[in-house]
């Protein structure tokens, strides 16, 4: 049985993928039904397993609707990220700006942002979820942070934030 906090956590993860609250709930419900339909659901990490189901359902739906632009990150994209200059430490943003960013980012970027910022997974943990090398995830994170920073730089210029 998943408690209220866990259900909220799963809902937020679904939301990070689809950005729409109703859709996030539908996906969560479908995932939960799929999980519960297996009588023998003795999974070692139920939360992680359910997140995988949520992810699969979302991408299946999007693939079916053919509206998603699948961004592939090849291993060739790996760069040396030991010195990642696109740190967001100093970036001060309000909730409205977060909403704007979330809406602007792609699905994969949003998911990555959620896992990194909210779940606070390390690059290695995210790499396990994606089944990708750690370097690829670091590369994705680097690009994500850069994109967010660029967005703010641009916004500052345009809107004087």
């Amino acid at each position, binding site marked *: *049985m*998943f408690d*209220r906090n866990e*259900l*909220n956590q799963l*809902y*937020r993860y679904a*939301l*990070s993928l689809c950005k729409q*609250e109703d859709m996030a*709930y539908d996906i*969560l*419900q479908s995932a*939960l*039904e799929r999980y*519960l*339909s297996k*009588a023998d659901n003795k999974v070692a990490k139920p939360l992680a397993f359910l997140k995988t189901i949520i992810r699969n359902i979302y991408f299946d739906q999007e693939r079916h609707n053919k509206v998603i632009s699948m961004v592939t990150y090849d291993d060739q994209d790996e760069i040396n990220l030991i010195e990642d200059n696109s*740190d*967001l*430490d*100093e*970036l*001060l*943003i*309000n*909730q409205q*700006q*977060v*909403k704007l960013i*979330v809406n602007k980012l792609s699905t994969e970027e949003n998911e990555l*942002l*959620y896992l*990194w*910022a*909210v779940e*606070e997974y390390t690059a290695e943990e995210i790499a396990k979820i994606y089944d990708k090398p750690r370097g690829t995830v670091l590369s994705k994170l680097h690009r994500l942070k850069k994109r*967010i920073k660029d967005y703010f730089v641009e916004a500052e210029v345009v809107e004087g934030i």
Partner: protein
Amino acid sequence: MKNTINPFKKAVQLFYENKSLSDSQQNQLQSLQEQARTDVNALVGTESANEIESGICHKIRNKWLIPVSIAASMSAIFVLVSLLSVPHLVSHAYTDVLKDASDYTLGELGATNRIQLDMVKAVPEKYSIEMHKYCFLDKEKTMHLRVAGVEQGKLHLFFKKGKGETNWLTRTGNYKDMHWKILQLKDDLTLLVMYTQDMRESSVNHIVNEVVSVVG
């Protein structure tokens, strides 16, 4: 959660923390889980009952299956061995053959053994009767007749009163250095034919046919 959270992360976390399921959504998902748990319990309960029932039957089956199987197998082996093994009559007769190998007695045939007397007389003249005498096979008085082949070999005829052993599946075969046949001439008369391997088969058949022809 890590201790040092940068403001950006904090802002994103706060953004998502504000996104929560409504009470009705929470209730729906909880009831979904409750329903599933009830179904699973019912299913597990039914399966357990079936497993217990089938387990008991299985145990009962196992309890009897092994001993019955062993008993059946042993019985089958025993029956098969007894059917396929050489009859005791043959082995006893062989012992008598060896014992009387140097015996050339031509004993008196009593008037009460008329048929046997006639059978002895029925042996074609070209074959010489070397011996005839009474012996006991399986505690039954039996006449033992030894006939020599024209050129080679020995033929032994045992006229035994009564029926042969009814469980004899094999009525012919080899025992040590001799061939043997058992013929049920009458309900109360059995003929055991034993002959050495150098005895001609045609001679054996000739003698036996002549002897048996006496029996009406």
